């Protein structure tokens, strides 16, 4: 048998795995296998490839929701006191506001001690409307409190906004007399030197003055009844009024109203507010007084008007009025 024939037989038996000596010899070789770490690595990879990924998706929405809740809570916490105070001021009664403000004032170390909690004074919207021309300077009185704590400072800053709904409590020693004096002085000044119309007055105050409400008209009418002995001008009356303020009452009510809420003397109410108006508006008011048969008041206003605007061309009906 040639070598080639032997090789062919060996190949045949090797392929058929029958009596193959080489195959038998190969089986005696060590049977190496992968180590345990390699097995574990392959199995872990295979398991991860088919493992459901729900666990990763499960906590993501929960985490997102928690983050949103935290953000909302943080924003509410930071903006909360300011928003809540505003809401409380707008919705609670003036009594509640006054008590709240009084607490704030007492809490402020810079404020003088308050003897007793002041009874809440009713706002007088008609007077306020008549004196609305002064609303441009409402922050002067609250600013004097000089609060040191943040909350008090915030309340003070909000006072101008709140004055139309409730009287701002004051802690001044003589809170009621001072505004009247200021007002009388203004009337004096306006009589001496024509002051420019208060163009910076809030529009709503202007409207209230031009178109006074029924309550305002009533107040005006009441003031005109007492008009006869007020011919001395507004100053004397203002002084008298300020002198007439009961000191005991002033002490008992230290949280006096802001100047806008202080009842002014009738003379000051009739002429002084009007001299802050545009001439046309003042003329309209005078005509209105005439229509309401308040001739004396109209004449007095007209005299004031002539002093303040000597060159103004009056309407024919008013030109004849003496």
């Amino acid at each position, binding site marked *: 048998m040639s070598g080639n024939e*032997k*090789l*062919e037989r*060996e*190949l045949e038996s*090797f*392929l058929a795995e029958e009596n193959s000596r*080489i*195959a038998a*010899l*190969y089986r*005696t*070789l*060590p*049977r*190496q*296998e*992968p180590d345990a770490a*390699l*097995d574990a*690595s*392959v*199995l872990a*990879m*295979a*398991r991860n*490839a*088919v*493992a459901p990924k729900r666990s990763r998706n499960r906590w993501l929405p929960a985490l997102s929701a928690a983050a949103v809740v935290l953000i909302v809570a943080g924003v509410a916490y930071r903006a909360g006191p300011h928003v809540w105070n505003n809401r409380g001021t707008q919705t609670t009664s003036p009594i509640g506001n006054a008590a709240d403000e009084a607490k704030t004032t007492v809490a402020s170390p810079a404020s003088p001690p308050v003897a007793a909690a002041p009874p809440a004074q009713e706002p007088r919207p008609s007077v306020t409307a008549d004196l609305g021309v002064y609303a441009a300077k409402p922050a002067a009185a609250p600013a004097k409190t000089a609060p040191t704590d943040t909350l008090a400072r915030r309340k003070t800053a909000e006072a101008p906004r709140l004055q139309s709904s409730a009287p701002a409590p004051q802690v001044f020693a003589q809170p009621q007399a001072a505004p009247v004096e200021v007002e009388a002085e203004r009337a004096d000044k306006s009589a001496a030197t024509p002051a420019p119309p208060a163009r910076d007055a809030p529009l709503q105050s202007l409207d209230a003055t031009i178109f006074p409400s029924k309550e305002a008209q009533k107040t005006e009418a009441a003031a005109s009844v007492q008009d006869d002995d007020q011919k001395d001008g507004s100053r004397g009356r203002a002084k008298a009024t300020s002198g007439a303020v009961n000191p005991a009452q002033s002490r008992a009510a230290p949280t006096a109203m802001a100047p806008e809420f202080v009842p002014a003397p009738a003379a000051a109410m009739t002429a002084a507010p009007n001299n802050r108006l545009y001439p046309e508006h003042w003329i309209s008011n005078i005509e209105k007084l005439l229509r309401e048969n308040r001739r004396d008041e109209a004449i007095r206003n007209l005299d004031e008007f002539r002093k303040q605007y000597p060159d103004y061309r009056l309407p024919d009906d008013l030109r004849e009025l003496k």
Partner: protein
Amino acid sequence: MGAEKTDEELMLAYAQGDARAFETLYARQRGMLYRYVLRSVGDRALADDVYQETWSRLVVSRTRYRAESKFSTWLLQIAHNLIIDTFRRAWPQAGAEETDTILRELDAPESEQPERVLSEFEQRRRLQMVLDALPLEQREAFLLRIEGGLGLEEISRLTGVGQETTKSRLRYALAKIRERFSE
């Protein structure tokens, strides 16, 4: 029971997400595949890399498996491709002429000592040496037959050559082994 299923059924089950099926399949094939890879590349660290990469590619392409072919053939095909890539990166492929030269050089010393009786240990050592010395394509054909249990047709399809070429490679490999152990 998973153990009673064929390799192909287990692979299909794994492709559907059954991790237990893969464990069974892996237990069946791990030794065969590892020895084929190790004896093909001749280096344990390299064999570990190729072995792990073979399974990794199987996992990635699990949904593309079709039961028309034997699972072991598909697995060995992946390993074979990786081995070829590894060798191509390591050194250029030896030509057929170079392979014949190496075979002649290896044949000469042993053919001069036909009567030598070798111990069993020596026989295993020599077989290991001659397998390592075989050209890659001959060694692969030999290992695919004896380790993978593939026939001529499967080896030819897997390696991408004709059956006569496969037969020739096997013939060369057997001739070298026989001559190293001279009868």
